[in-house]
């Protein structure tokens, strides 16, 4: 039980990355592939923040004067993940615009039927 409590966040992140990779590799609908890419990005963000977590400490905002500087969590991974979330939404919007354009040209969303992507 203690083993599970110590590693459960890594299981969450690894599980999301593997489910996202399975969707990208196996499914043939273009919008499902984009949902899979979103899962991979969410899994990596959870991994980054759970690396910076220290047991027993609090959030790195000194809103009152009685928070000791030796009592806060690591603030650098949180700054990196803030950037990563915003870039994730930008990439997803651009990918969806390309999907809409491909649908208008080919009238189908199946990856195996669009010319040039045969396995």
């Amino acid at each position, binding site marked *: 039980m203690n083993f599970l409590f110590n590693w459960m966040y890594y299981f969450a992140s690894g599980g999301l990355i593997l489910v996202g990779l399975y969707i990208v590799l196996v499914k043939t609908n273009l919008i499902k592939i984009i949902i899979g890419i979103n899962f991979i990005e969410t899994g990596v963000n959870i991994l980054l923040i759970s690396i910076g977590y220290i047991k027993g400490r609090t959030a*790195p*905002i000194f809103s009152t004067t009685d928070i000791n500087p030796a009592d*806060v969590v690591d*603030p*650098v991974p949180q*700054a990196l993940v803030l950037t990563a979330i*915003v870039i994730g939404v*930008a990439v997803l*919007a651009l990918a969806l615009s390309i999907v809409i354009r491909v649908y208008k040209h080919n009238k189908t969303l199946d990856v195996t039927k669009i010319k040039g992507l045969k396995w």
Partner: protein
Amino acid sequence: MRRVISIIILLIIAGGLILAFSQIPFGKNKINVANYYIKKGIEETGAVNIITSVVLNYRGFDTLGEVTVLFIAAIGLGAVLFVERKVQRKVSSNKEDKIKKASLILRTGTQLLFPLILLFSTYIFVHGHLTPGGGFQGGAIFASAFLLMYLVFPKQSINKKSSSVAESLGGLIFVGIGLLGLIFSGHFLANFLPKGVPRTIFSAGIIPIIYIAIGFKVGFEITVIIDNLLERSK
């Protein structure tokens, strides 16, 4: 055939992930670079929120890169979905008579909620250096207010020209303040305004000004993205 090869690849990747994650202890003290940021953060920047001072002062150049990536994504979306004007008007006149009007509660509630959501988002990105929040979160909430108006009123749209002007102005203010820091203090994006008293609103130098510019820029950018996807404004 495709499924079998994919599951074999996934098992290999899972083995690699387990091997890598077992080397990282969970919850132990691993702070290396951030010791300096936590100790000297308040007296060097004046912002009480350490994440804000890391994002805008110590690693401010990465934030400039992120704002550029958002800008390129918005431009790319507008360029890929560009439709000629004659074709668009012919297609849209067929579908407009099938949309039903929204109910009275929805219309009245949205007209009451729209300025309150805009006020709330402005509060979040003005107080970015005192409480959790900042430009990107406030910008996303700003865009969701316009999204609510788009969903309820099917014939209204924003003025795209003034939104583009406001978005470009936000980006120009960010780069302009960086160049002013270069002129006054010797390096790009230096904090040249006075730091003030911590935990008040007029503190932390250039950080609130940059967050206000970023908040408006991100808000209008995502609104223009949604408007391009819905293809509604003429």
